[in-house]
């Protein structure tokens, strides 16, 4: 149900460490903000486009992942053209699409595990001050992945219960039992986690 957006491969971009890629994205987002000359933006855009298209994604998948952002950028570009002129609109669209392509390229070439390692490193300063436990983040993420299919099954049950009673499926009669049934499990799950000593408290 929840398939990661990672794509297997061994391209040079796959081999770059994730931290370097994230720093590149952050730097690019700051630097590109101050660049408005299409003579610089266009080559950068083409470079990111080539990078994104050579990661081993099928054309269909590659387009599907960013298509909706492309649409949003198109609407924004038209509005900017109307209010601020053509040059501004071109610079804006190139800038945003370049960043989106780079970000999509990073997502396609880094595993969830690699991301979690980086997040744990980023949370270390907070953990040292006793504000949170970095391991909790991984635990919470695992719980979400574990329970989404469970909620989907519950949703189907509630819909079938409606059908069996000849009731129309309304948002309210659907969400209320779904949320209560799901949250009611919290106590049992919390006890199970504590009984296994996962949080070492």
């Amino acid at each position: 149900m929840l398939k990661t957006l990672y794509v297997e491969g061994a391209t040079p971009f796959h081999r770059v460490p994730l931290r370097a890629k994230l720093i590149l994205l952050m730097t690019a987002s700051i630097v590109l903000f101050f660049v408005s000359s299409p003579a610089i933006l266009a080559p950068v855009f083409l470079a990111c486009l080539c990078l994104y298209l050579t990661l081993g994604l099928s054309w269909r998948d590659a387009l599907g992942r960013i298509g909706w952002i492309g649409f949003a950028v198109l609407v924004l570009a038209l509005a900017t053209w109307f209010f601020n002129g053509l040059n501004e609109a071109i610079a804006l669209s190139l800038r945003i699409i370049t960043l989106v392509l780079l970000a999509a390229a990073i997502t396609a070439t880094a595993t969830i595990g690699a991301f979690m390692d980086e997040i744990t490193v980023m949370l270390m300063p907070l953990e040292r001050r006793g504000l949170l436990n970095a391991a909790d983040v991984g635990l919470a993420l695992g719980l979400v992945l574990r329970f989404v299919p469970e909620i989907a099954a519950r949703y189907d049950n509630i819909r079938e219960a409606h059908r069996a009673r000849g009731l129309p499926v309304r948002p309210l009669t659907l969400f209320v039992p779904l949320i209560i049934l799901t949250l009611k499990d919290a106590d049992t799950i919390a006890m199970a986690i504590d009984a296994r000593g996962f949080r070492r408290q």
Partner: protein
Amino acid sequence: MTTRDLVLIALFAAIIVFLGIIPPITLGFVPVPITAQSMGVMLAGCILGAKRGALAYVLVILMVAVGLPVLSGGRGGLAVLAGPTAGYIAGWVVGTYVTGFIAERLVNENQGGARQMAGFFIASIVGGIGVVYLLGNLWLAFITGIGLDKAFLASLAFIPGDLIKAGIATLAARAILVGYPLLPQRA
């Protein structure tokens, strides 16, 4: 934070993810189908309260960042956070916090149903609509150079749908407060 709070946050994040998977729901009296996921801000704030609700959304955004397609329509990945709509996504976290903050102060279990619903409705509108659009439009205006007033004018088109969502969230939050109250015991 107790283990129970951690689990509640994770379970609600799972509900938010699931709301993005189900097809848009059509209401009997409005022809336009509504996507359920944006209702999550109001629901999370009104049901879990400020801190836990906001953390549930932080968890969802974390999942987006690590490359899971958890947003409606199977969207996900860093591209979402780099795109022009990133302000709305930041608005979800702050909006949930504000919704929960207001709901915690306006609603308690000893009030009558009408007062509780009024409290939830105000919280949903201020946090779930006001804050989300404020942050989203500020970011949009900042990166595009389009005036803030024009960005707000464009988002007016979505307000009627959002008011309906606030209404549904209000009724759901009140039913859950009666059935399984979580809001009074703040994290």
